[in-house]
């Protein structure tokens, strides 16, 4: 078996350790003897290459870099990315990239930037004098299908831990949220939702190294990618996740959430 990871603009969109998600998917496949190829979906990539990947990873960009991405990710490339995700190809979009998938982003100063419109969400920056949303986050996944799919993969409650740092505030339309905030700001610090879920694409403000500390999400992405590609349910070999469990336990303890840790 082989999976091809499509990495969106690796040099432009990689601000907060975002490559952690790529490394995590790559290693967890290799540890299970699933072959892995990494396809850099950047300015030099052809639209066809967007069609030839089995799972898509996107990270955050600084403003100037985000502009270059928005100029490049147009026309056929954008259409291919959209249809891939609509068809159920799994993806993980962290930090700034969910803004890219939404309808538009309204910066603190300057003009509204149109997104791909794949997700029914909008992002507005309340102005440079409004504090950014920065800190550790914990949120519980809310989609029943996702929660059910994760159950065989992880014994604990489906709680995601991470770190957020964003100025923009995101508001969901029809698109369903990814999680309910337990600690932190989430999409906008008001409505209690975090991220978005569209088919098998996860979007979240929790940045870069989301997957190493939430390995059940990594395994779900791998499993889903294999199902989409080979049309059969593959049971993934269990890995030694004791360091991830300890990293999670340390953060739960600090956030005073330890009581929520149940073991099946």
């Amino acid at each position, binding site marked *: 078996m082989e999976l091809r990871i499509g990495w969106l603009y690796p*040099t432009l969109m*990689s*601000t*907060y*350790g*975002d*490559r*952690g998600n790529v*490394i*995590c998917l790559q*290693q967890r496949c*290799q*540890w299970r003897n699933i072959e892995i190829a990494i396809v850099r979906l950047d300015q030099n990539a052809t639209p066809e290459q967007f069609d030839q990947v089995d799972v898509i990873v996107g990270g955050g960009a*600084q*403003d*100037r870099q985000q502009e270059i991405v928005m100029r490049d990710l147009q026309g056929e490339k954008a259409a291919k990315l959209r249809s891939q995700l609509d068809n159920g190809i799994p993806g993980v979009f962290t930090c700034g990239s969910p803004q890219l998938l939404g309808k538009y982003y309204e910066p603190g100063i300057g003009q509204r930037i149109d997104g791909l419109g794949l997700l029914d969400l909008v992002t507005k920056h309340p102005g440079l004098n409004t504090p*950014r949303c*920065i*800190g*550790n986050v914990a949120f519980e996944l809310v989609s029943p299908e996702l929660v059910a799919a994760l159950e065989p993969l992880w014994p604990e409650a489906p709680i995601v831990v991470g*770190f957020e*740092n964003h100025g923009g505030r995101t508001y969901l339309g029809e698109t369903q949220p990814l999680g309910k905030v337990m600690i932190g700001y989430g999409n906008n610090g008001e409505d209690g939702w975090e991220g978005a879920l569209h088919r098998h694409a996860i979007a979240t403000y929790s*940045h*870069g*190294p989301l997957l*190493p*500390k939430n390995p059940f999400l990594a395994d779900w992405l791998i499993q889903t990618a294999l199902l989409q590609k080979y049309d059969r349910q593959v049971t993934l070999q269990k890995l030694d996740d004791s*360091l*991830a469990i*300890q*990293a999670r336990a*340390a953060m739960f303890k600090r956030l005073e959430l330890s009581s929520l840790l149940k073991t099946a």
Partner: protein
Amino acid sequence: MNLLDRVRLGAAVATAKAITAIVKGLKLGAASVLPGSIARRLHPRLLPLLFEQVKSGVVLIVGTNGKTTTSLLLRTILEQQGKHVTHNATGANLINGLITALLADTDAFGTLDRDYAILEVDENILPLVLKDCRPRYILALNLFRDQLDRYGEVDTISRRWQSAIAPLPTDTTIILNADDPTLNFLGQNLTQTVRYFGLNEPDRYLSEIPHAVDSIYCPQCGASLDYQGVYLSHLGDYACPSCDFKKHPLAINSPEWGQILIGIYNKYNTLAAALLAQTMGIDRNAITQTIQTFKAAFGRAEELTYEGKHIRILLSKNPVGLNESIRAVNELKLAGKSSVTFLILNDRTPDGTDVSWIWDVDTEPLTTSGGTIIVSGDRTYDMALRIQYSQANPPSQANPCELIPDDNLQSALKTAIARTPADETLHIVPTYSAMLEVRKLLTGREIL
């Protein structure tokens, strides 16, 4: 200075000195910021008045990495020439820290009798300092991604530096790192005297550009820069393929100079201090002599002996810093001089509360070179995960790598020391607050 200024300055200074005495007397702390904060309220023009009194002028040192080591080297060069130098050696590099450092050497009447003042300045407050202060020299070392949770972006910072430096008198001397495209570009648009340091040693190029790179686009036209080679992060020999932007000729020939401590980043620090000292008129032989006998600032490639074991502490605060520490450690590992590395990751305010940056670091070479990696700190298991995911597939039989996480700093340190053979060096690679902690355990003394 007019009489009124003089009187008010005296009053502000006297108050600050009284506060310092109280804070220290009651053992409330090192008094490295508070006296400045209060004195400044008593006299808003305090900092410029202090600047004016420094006889041969104030040196401001900015940059993401290397400020402390470079300042200390420059200070040592000057002091060995018999100059009297003030320096914010505590690393307190915001406005109140600068004032406090200058006040410490001021007499009760507000007179500052010093030849030079060397001030490490936080990259974000340089514009604030330059608003009403007139340094004689500004040295800019580099601009890397560091604690974006505090500062935002490299581009923004360099633009703000540019507009803050532009109005300074034309006899101000600006020393810049030509190997950093952002700083090289900054120099092009200044009317002041600009001199460039950098490396011209292609045999020291990295084999590939590291992941944690910020500035690979031409600051003039936005095209991707062509690199003949990189020495460290995005520092290297480059030119723009689509406009006339390229690395400026250097005012110092790097192969002719030795360096302090270890690591290529310390070669940059050496060249920066040497060029500035030469600009000040210090004799080259005298500079070379200081370079040869230089002792590290605390935690910056500082060497210690503890229970008969040789230890080197390599403070690493950001992706570039950690990449370079790993590179220096690996050279020693490959030479058989080191096999135990002790990584300590904290996430307190001085470290940056977000530890995601460790995933921008190329930690892989540290595991593939084998040996023992011990991990501790507030974020022990985050770092342990990074190391776990860095291991080669399949793991090397020839160079096995053992990972030992232990969130108790004291017992982790004990293990690290016990595992280190007597003829090798233990390398401790901590973030800022972790460096202070581990150093306290090793020396039994608290610093600042």
